[in-house]
């Protein structure tokens, strides 16, 4: 049984065990709900194959995103051009990724603050919103983890704990996001050995197992900036594809090129231009096309 299946089993047990605690705090009840959903998501196929498989799950709506980042909430606004842009990216990625291959996607950027976390989260949410996909979003930016905060999920342990061995069971660190079929693998507690952990064989094995075991699941990995975190380039070589995020007009071309050069030998799905000015050249073109 895979680690995820084991994790789900334990989660189920925990839910069953805590069901009687109906007088718990609102947050606890919320967490329970989320956990139940995680179990629900991953349990429907577990009985059949012993392997968690995607299920229809509940549709995500804004009420589920009370604590989430407004950028994430905007994803669920059908009239938002912001959401439309991400839908386009999602379409591209779906086209680029095969049904049975290429589901592990690293979202990277040259420097920090260019929007890769938001991009990763939004992509993961949109992918999870679709009918056919379950998504695991991994926060591999152990130095500045933001995915959980962006999604409004409180976490304790995470990837760093797992990789360091303080947590042996992956199920302990998987966190429900409350967004349907989207599960979060948070970054975990801060560690000084970020690079070593992320480039360890354990991490590689984890990725391989995630790829092989859940072939129809999308794994979106949020990473640290390429020029600041050396492990990102290593991760890029282990994944099926990289989405490179560039913030318009922020970094100099030379900086971006330098960051991109670190992954040029990897499979780059494409470049996403983020924070495009409404009147800029890029957005001007985008606007003409998008609102034709």
């Amino acid at each position, binding site marked *: 049984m895979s680690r995820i299946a084991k994790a789900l089993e334990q989660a189920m047990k925990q839910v069953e065990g805590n069901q009687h605690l109906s007088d718990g705090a609102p947050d606890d009840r919320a967490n329970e709900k989320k956990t139940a959903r995680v179990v629900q998501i991953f349990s429907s196929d577990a009985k059949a194959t012993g392997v968690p498989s995607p299920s229809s799950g509940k549709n995500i709506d804004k009420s589920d995103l009370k604590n989430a980042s407004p950028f994430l909430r905007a994803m669920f606004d059908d009239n938002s051009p912001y959401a439309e842009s991400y839908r386009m990216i999602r379409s591209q990625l779906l086209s680029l990724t095969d049904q049975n291959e290429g589901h592990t996607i690293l979202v990277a950027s040259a420097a920090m603050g260019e929007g890769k976390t938001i991009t990763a989260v939004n992509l993961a949410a949109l992918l999870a919103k679709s009918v056919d996909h379950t998504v695991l979003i991994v926060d591999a930016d152990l130095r500045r983890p933001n995915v959980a905060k962006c999604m409004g999920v409180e976490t304790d342990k995470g990837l760093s704990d797992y990789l360091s061995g303080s947590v042996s069971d992956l199920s302990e660190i998987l966190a429900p996001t409350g967004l349907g079929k989207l599960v979060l693998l948070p970054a975990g507690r801060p560690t000084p050995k970020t690079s070593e952990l992320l480039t360890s064989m354990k991490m590689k094995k984890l990725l391989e197992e995630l790829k092989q075991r859940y072939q129809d699941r999308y794994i979106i990995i949020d990473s640290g900036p390429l020029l600041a975190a050396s492990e990102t380039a290593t991760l890029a070589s282990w994944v099926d594809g990289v*989405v490179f995020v560039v913030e318009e007009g922020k970094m100099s*071309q030379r900086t971006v090129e330098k960051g991109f050069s670190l992954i040029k030998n990897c499979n780059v799905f*494409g470049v996403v231009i983020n924070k495009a*000015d409404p009147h800029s050249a890029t957005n001007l073109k985008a606007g003409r096309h998008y609102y034709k």
Partner: protein
Amino acid sequence: MNSNTALVKNVALIPKESYSTQQQLDFNKFRGAIAQRRYLALFIFLAILSGVTWKTMVMKNVYEAKSLVLIDKPEILGPLLRDLTQGADNAALSALVETLRKNMLSRTMVEKVIKKLLLDAGIKNAAQYETLVAGIQDGVKIKVQKTDLFEVSYQSEKPENTRDIVNTLVAAYIETNVGSNKTETNEAIDFIKDQIMIYKEKLDESDRQLRKFKENHPGALTLNENSLLERLRNMKTQLLESELQLKGSKRELESLREQLKNEEPLSIKTIKTRVPKELPIEALRLREAKAKMKDMLGVYTEKHPNIVSLKRTIQEMEEAVSRKISDRNDLMENSLENEEVEANPVYQALQERLSKAQTNIDLTTVRITELKSMIAKDEKRLSETPKEQEELSRLTRGRSVYQGMHDAMMGKLEQASVSKAVEDNDKGASFRVLDPAALPVLPVSPNKIKLMISAFLLAIFGAMALPLGIEFISPAFRDIETIENKLGANVIGIIPMMEIGRENRKKNIIWSICMGFSSLFVMFITMLLVREIAFRLNGAYLFF
């Protein structure tokens, strides 16, 4: 994955037909660059605008006063003006300006102005004074508008000073120029008077010398060579005749002496002593001497030495004659008729003739001696006549020269006096102030309106230039083509800027506040500009 990449390329995310024109894209690119660094742009704008405006406001106004002067008598400008024609030669004009400038801005003139206007009231040391003098000399500008019209201008921060300096300088120049002519005339008159004095003294000295010469050489005046020669010839003739006469007289004397030897001086007879009634022989001699005197007076003056000696001789003869006559008279009184031996009448006659002859001889000898002396003197004089004449000529010539110079000086004195009288009546006719300097109201510099408008433009330019410069030096990605070309990867999505959240609101509020203050500041600057424009138009500030 290469097939996926190719798939991406086939996906026309952004059809090229919908692209904007290149200019619009470039404009948007630049706009994006400025928008991204808007705070920097705003800071630059405000910094330049405030800096230049402040500098303009604190700059002191400079006022200018001008005076237009007409030259009534162009000839005073000397030969320069002869060369100036309709199309005046630039070199000649430049020389004219330089001449005017040197004359008008000489240290003496400037110091006169300073003293008159009390501009050195606050001066504490020599260095400050020198700075003041140099400032005026450098600040006064002279421009020749036409050949007989020039403009004097001066710029200063104090309008009153500007006007006063120009007017005082022009007046001082005119006054000095006219006064110098008068001074020259007075000096000329004084010089002429001095010369007259000098030549007067020389003339007097010359007269004195001439007079002295005349006294020392009396004959030089009246005697000329010809008359001297004539007289010499006459005297030689007389000498010859006298010598002949002397010889005759000597022969006669010898003959008479011979005759006397043969005669007895006495004969016996009773006779009465007769007093001879004939005149004594001295009387005869006296008569002859007087006749000779009369002859000589026809030739010589009474002061002639020969005349003088003859007079002396005549006087002695007269005394001798008078003694003889008185003796004879005594004899006549005491005469007795007695028998005596009577003088031989022949002997007596002979003796008389002998005496006469002796007298003639004496006289002739004296005459010959005198003639010889006179001849010698005349010959000597004749030999000395050229020198005397030369001396006389020299003295006469010198006197003539001095007299001529004296007369000439007197003539010039008269001319100078007349000229002075004419100048006294002709005051200030050389220069005429056509347009005196007035109190300037509007400053000539700085042109604050131009400066403030320039400040606006410069601020805008700077606000745009710096962000664009940064963008040019270190460009960022702002369009799809550049990204795809540089990175070699397709753009699969463009996420627009999303302004949500408290942070964005905060940013917007900050930006709005900045823009608000900036707008107020720009309005303030604009009001200052309007104020300056109103000042230029009306001559007075509307506010502040």
